[in-house]
């Protein structure tokens, strides 16, 4: 009995540690993305710490709200940040362990993702400005195409494991590395990667560094936010980016993640898990930023084509995983 309690305490410690690691690392990941782009473009770059400095600066500032904005203007940033934190806790990045009463189920994770997406969309609409509404409209259009793909892709991965929880899926790939290169698995991961790029507003779907209001998706929605509110929205968005990128990295290269084991993950396993996830995510960040440098932004009306393609991949993956196994 006491061993069970100790095991549960260890799991909680592991999850808290995982959340803290993701929160600390998320702005660094954004720094890596920006720095890699800067270097490719022959610029010195702002350094890895700049997103953290921006965040600290914004957090100290009083948020100003546009006239006509409602309670949504300050609730939505909290929800975006909250959903990001919840994702950080639920999705297996450092460890695949999770408290039994907090299901890291596929459907729960996608719902949490969607809560953040909708909150962001409402935030864009709230002040009633044309840009915000335009951004929200585009954002939700993209979300409507992305979420089913995420659902399907992860579902395809869950078939061989027999569980829709993300922890066992990653553990399953660790136990049977053959699945990493199985055709259905590869299709699913590619579909998921495209969905992640769209979900996190990266090139070729959105351009995170543009100043052109009329082309924006994500940036247009946060134009009216400032100070602490903006810090919360930014950190929430960065958490989503980091968690999703780390998830893809863990699916492709599952080694190093701290498994639940018998009595919850031990300290050495957790330490290894932290190092592994930081290295893997940073590497995937470098790959993502490099790919972005050599791509242009798609015409908005071409984005559905890309996302439909990723949905088809995910669908094939589901079919494939039943047929091939």
């Amino acid at each position, binding site marked *: 009995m006491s061993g069970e309690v100790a095991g549960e305490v260890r799991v909680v410690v592991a999850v808290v540690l995982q959340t803290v690691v993701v929160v600390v690392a998320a702005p660094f990941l954004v720094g890596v993305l920006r720095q890699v*782009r800067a270097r*490719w*473009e*022959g*610029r010195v770059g702002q350094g890895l710490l700049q997103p953290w400095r921006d965040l600290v600066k914004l957090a100290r500032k009083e948020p100003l709200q546009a006239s006509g904005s409602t309670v949504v203007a300050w609730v939505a940033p909290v929800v975006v940040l909250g959903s990001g934190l919840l994702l950080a806790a639920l999705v297996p990045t450092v460890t695949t362990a999770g408290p039994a009463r907090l299901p890291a189920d596929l459907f729960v994770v996608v719902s949490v993702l969607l809560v953040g997406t909708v909150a962001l969309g409402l935030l864009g609409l709230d002040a009633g400005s*044309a*840009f915000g*509404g*335009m951004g929200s409209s*585009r954002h939700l259009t993209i979300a409507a195409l992305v979420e089913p793909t995420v659902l399907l892709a992860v579902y395809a991965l869950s078939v061989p494991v027999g569980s829709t929880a993300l922890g066992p899926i990653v553990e399953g790939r660790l136990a049977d590395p053959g699945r990493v290169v199985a055709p259905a698995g590869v299709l699913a991961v590619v579909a998921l990667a495209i969905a992640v790029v769209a979900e996190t507003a990266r*090139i*070729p779907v959105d*351009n995170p*560094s*543009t*100043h*052109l*209001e*009329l*082309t924006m998706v994500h940036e247009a929605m946060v134009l009216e936010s400032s100070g602490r509110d903006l810090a919360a929205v930014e950190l929430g968005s960065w958490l989503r980016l980091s968690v999703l990128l780390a998830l893809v990295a863990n699916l492709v290269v599952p080694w190093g993640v701290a498994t639940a084991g018998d009595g919850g993950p031990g300290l050495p396993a957790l330490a290894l898990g932290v190092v592994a996830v930081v290295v893997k995510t940073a590497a995937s960040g470098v790959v993502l930023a490099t790919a972005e*440098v*050599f*791509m*242009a*932004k*798609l*015409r*908005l*009306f*071409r984005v559905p084509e890309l996302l439909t393609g990723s949905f088809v991949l995910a669908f094939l993956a589901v079919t494939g995983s039943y047929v091939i196994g």
Partner: protein
Amino acid sequence: MSATPTAGPVLPQPVLSRPTTREALRADVAALLADGHRMLLVVAENAPGAVRLGYVLARPDGGPEGPSGAGESRVELTLEVSTDDAWVPTIADLSYPGGRFEREIRDLFGVEPRDHPLPRRLVRHAHWPRAWHPLLGERSAQTDVVPDFGEDLSAFPFLEVGGDGVYEIPVGPVHAGLIEPGHFRFSVVGETIVRMKARLWYVHRGVERLFEGRTPDDGVVLAERISGDTAVGHTLAYALACEEALGLVVPQRDRLVRALLLELERMHNHAADLGMILNDVAFGLANVHLQRVRENLLRLNESVTGHRLLRGGVRVGGADVVALPDVGLVRAAAADVAEVVRLALEHPMVLDRLVATAVLGREDAVRMGVLGYVARASGVDVDARRDHPFVDPAALPGGPPAPAVDSEGDVLARFTVRAREVEASARFVVAATEVLASGGPRASAGPQSAAPRGIARGLGIVEAWRGLLCHRVTVGADGRLARVKVVDPSFMNWPALPVALADTIVPDFPLANKSFNQSYAGNDL
């Protein structure tokens, strides 16, 4: 042609001035337009108790757009109207740019174009005091007083588009990037632009008024600053106009130096804009390389005239350079531009964004009198370097830079036309530098300034990098500037942007706008 600098055809072609009357104006304008002339500008100037209007039209010598062999022609129809009875019959139905000049003159001088089909205010903003016409009356201490501006109470009139799901997006006048002020009102269904209305004229500085009372030589610094990126274009048009008014003949060598400076200006602007077009499709890598090329060109400019934007090169009566450009750097810049452009056009995603975006049809381009690379990308072969030369083509090594023409009228056409112009300009700069370095043509001075000849007028036409640019100068009997009228090609090209936007989607607007890249400051003086 002859080696002596003063022989050969009289260039630039002098303006033929012809008085007309209110009754005959429309028929005269129609006859000139039918004879292959295009409307260059309509200028108003103050006369005792009256406003003197000049309708300036010009016809190219040959070229696909003009009747060949008839010879170049520049005509000014003059008409005086009393300030008590200040109206003219409109020519808006004969010439679209003519109608816009009439609205400009109505706002600045109070001369009413009668029966104008679109009599809305153009330059005037609603906060200007009622019945205040900033250019009316000789310049005096009174006209220099800035009036009390009220609040802008009137709504900005634009066509409201009705129907299900139509919404409006107001953008500007203050933008997120480092660009000039302009207000754009989009009526949109979903993401498709149904209609766009641009409100400009936020940067009225009274430049034309500031010229008045200066000596022609003192006007140069002002002309260089009308639109910072077109320092050579504006200064050269100004100098040509002054020279015609003063009867100055510019030595052949200085003419060649001017042609060379004009192409250097074209190169650095085109390089920067090509990069920014690519930046707007998020292909930042190409942009940083083109901005590097631009920086190299700016440094080269500094070595040529002592100023990065080529100020100080052109003066009334001649041109000065500190040193001739390093042809190696010019060749390298052109090669770099060509390489980046090739890489960009081989990129399917980039190409997909540029193709068929914001198409300006040839018919619309001709009807609106569009100029420069915007016109040439829509299949209208206009180029003042060939049509209205200021330097004997025979003296140009290899002839004037060949105009690049495309027929598609989309962003890609405007992009490739400008890329080809960089190549042509670089070839010309290299060839001209070699001719100048080898000593010819000699720097012999022509007959210099004649005595003041009473009130004298002159016209300068230049193919600046944005397109055909004119200055029309009046020098008073005291030898000082009485009136300078400036027409940047942006004045002609701005109205074409909304036309090109039909069926374009909102997120492609910045790209379309960048491919036009018209000047706000050059448009609003």
